[in-house]
């Protein structure tokens, strides 16, 4: 069953274009010039129940805008979307009780109060009955091991602890759909790991449909099988993580260990040399030429050991982003489509 259905969803907004110079600013008093920014351009996407999907993309690609559209916080310019059968921007209470949005960069808990008080407010607003509320709260606080911090004012908590509390607040009403916007931003490695583990566990146990945006590839690798890459407001890839590497990681990292400790001078002929620290050399070789290159190398040079790996995911994705931006800058929509095709 499809939980999220998006069809040619578009969101543009106008920004006031400020003119420079005295004459222009005088003119600006009477006539304002605007510039249209296209945050999301015609996105199509379907997410099935229980899926965990990651949105990847450079800053300003439209990931957060998409999540805000699906939460009904903002209105689209055109297109349709349905989440759990509801049109999000109608903001019906029936819909708003069924999902949650967590934003890593904004906090909604009362700053000067213990988190427990904010939770109680949520209980009232979402009309959660007492037993269920207490059960969920206790379960979540022990899963995230923040039980003893419940009565401490939020301003005294660390960033990681605060984020855990924000998550609990969002999950108290047992949402069926969860939108996570950069949930681990600014956290240290341990806190990041804890939150990842929690999300993984919680998602598996409850099977709730989750859409996540993140800058940390580790979040994505740990949590999501399905990845959607958005750039320039469009979906340029939709598939598994492995596929990204298969499709976009055109080259492999080959590590060579020379048995005589001496590095030959003609290595450039085989591929791009990344590093050379005798007796070890790392180089990039085109995926389809790996076998041929290796056999030629073995033929001409004394090699003690050879290993072939995929390049790190971060690099592949960064590469995809920069390609998408280049092409997007050159010819906009149509070119990005081509990237999806090829």
């Amino acid at each position, binding site marked *: 069953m499809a939980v999220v259905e998006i069809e040619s969803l578009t969101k543009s907004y106008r920004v006031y274009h400020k003119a420079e110079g005295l004459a222009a600013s005088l003119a600006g008093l009477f006539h304002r010039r605007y510039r249209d920014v296209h945050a999301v351009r015609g996105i199509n996407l379907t997410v099935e129940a229980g899926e965990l999907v990651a949105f990847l993309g450079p800053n300003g690609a439209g990931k957060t805008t998409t999540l805000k559209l699906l939460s009904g916080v903002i209105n689209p310019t055109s297109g349709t979307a349905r989440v759990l059968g509801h049109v999000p921007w109608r903001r019906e209470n029936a819909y708003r009780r069924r999902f949650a*949005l967590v934003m890593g960069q904004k906090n909604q808990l009362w700053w000067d109060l213990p988190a427990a008080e904010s939770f109680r407010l949520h209980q*009232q607003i979402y009309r959660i009955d007492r037993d269920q509320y207490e059960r969920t709260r206790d379960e979540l606080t022990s899963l995230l091991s923040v039980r003893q911090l419940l009565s401490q004012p939020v301003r005294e908590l660390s960033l990681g602890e605060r984020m855990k509390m924000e998550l609990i607040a969002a999950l108290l009403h047992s949402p069926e759909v969860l939108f996570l916007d950069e949930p681990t931003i600014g956290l240290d490695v341990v806190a990041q790991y804890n939150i990842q583990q929690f999300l993984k566990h919680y998602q598996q146990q409850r099977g709730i449909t989750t859409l996540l945006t993140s800058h940390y590839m580790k979040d994505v690798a740990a949590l999501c099988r399905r990845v959607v890459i958005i750039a320039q407001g469009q979906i340029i890839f939709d598939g598994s993580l492995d596929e990204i590497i298969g499709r976009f990681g055109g080259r492999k990292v080959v590590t060579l260990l020379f048995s005589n400790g001496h590095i030959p001078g003609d290595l450039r002929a085989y591929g791009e040399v990344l590093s050379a620290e005798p007796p070890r050399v790392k180089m990039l070789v085109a995926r389809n030429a790996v076998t041929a290159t290796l056999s030629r190398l073995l033929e001409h040079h004394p090699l003690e050991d050879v290993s072939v790996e995929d390049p790190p995911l971060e690099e592949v994705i960064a590469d995809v982003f920069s390609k998408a931006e280049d092409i997007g800058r050159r010819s906009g929509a149509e070119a990005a489509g081509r990237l999806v095709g090829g």
Partner: protein
Amino acid sequence: MRTHPSYLRVLLTFARNSLVRDMTFRGNFLIETLSSMSWVIMNLGFYVLVFQHTPRLGAVTDWGEYAFSWGKYEFFLFLSTTLVINSLVQTLFMENASEFSELIRTGKLDFALLKPIDTQFLISLQRVQWASLGNLAVGVGLAAYSLVRLGWVPTAAQVGLYLLFVACGVAIMYSLMIALAATSIWLGRNQSLYDFWFYITNFSRYPMEIYHGPLGTPLRLFFTFIIPVMVVVNVPARFLIRPLVPQTVSDLTLPAFAILATLVSLTASRYLFQRSLLSYRSASS
């Protein structure tokens, strides 16, 4: 299962949470209460001075068997009504209205829009400023003292009507405040919100009879029928001060108009609020 929350219980939780917060900064709370009370008392001092030099404000109105004028204690009853209404508005809405633009600036309005509860209710009442209740106490005290000095005991019906129209006054003031906050979002500036509010509500602080003449009459009509701040205090205060026997046509029409003004203000401000949300929701990224 009902889809909307119990608004009363949510409101009580707002009030409770605000109190918990205030009690964590007890010293600050006390100073805030005392300083806003001393402001009120200084104002009172000014009127005490004024009434040293005059027996009343304006002329005596004579309606056959009954004569009325704004003497010292009649005016103090009026003043206490101003205090009661203003302190209620400050306690319930002031902090929230000024916070509204901050919510928009920081994008935290998103959270309010997510909640399965009326957004205007949530935005308008989230924080209760308990410190402003000190002025309510001063207002009630002043009213009691003035009634004693006048030797006047209002009937239960009078008190009931008084409370009803105080509620109307609070609603009109709230509408004006939330409308100002919403329009300031539109205009993209907010600094002058509080000033503007102060200047406009200033016209509610005196009995409307004092506005007459070539400048006063248009002012009175404008601030009664266009921006109805003059009915806010005048209507309830009259119910407490005079016997319930209507003396003039306006004794009947003005309260009726106050009810109408309340309904219109609430509707208009709700419309403005929704429009400002709409522009937020279509303009933000």
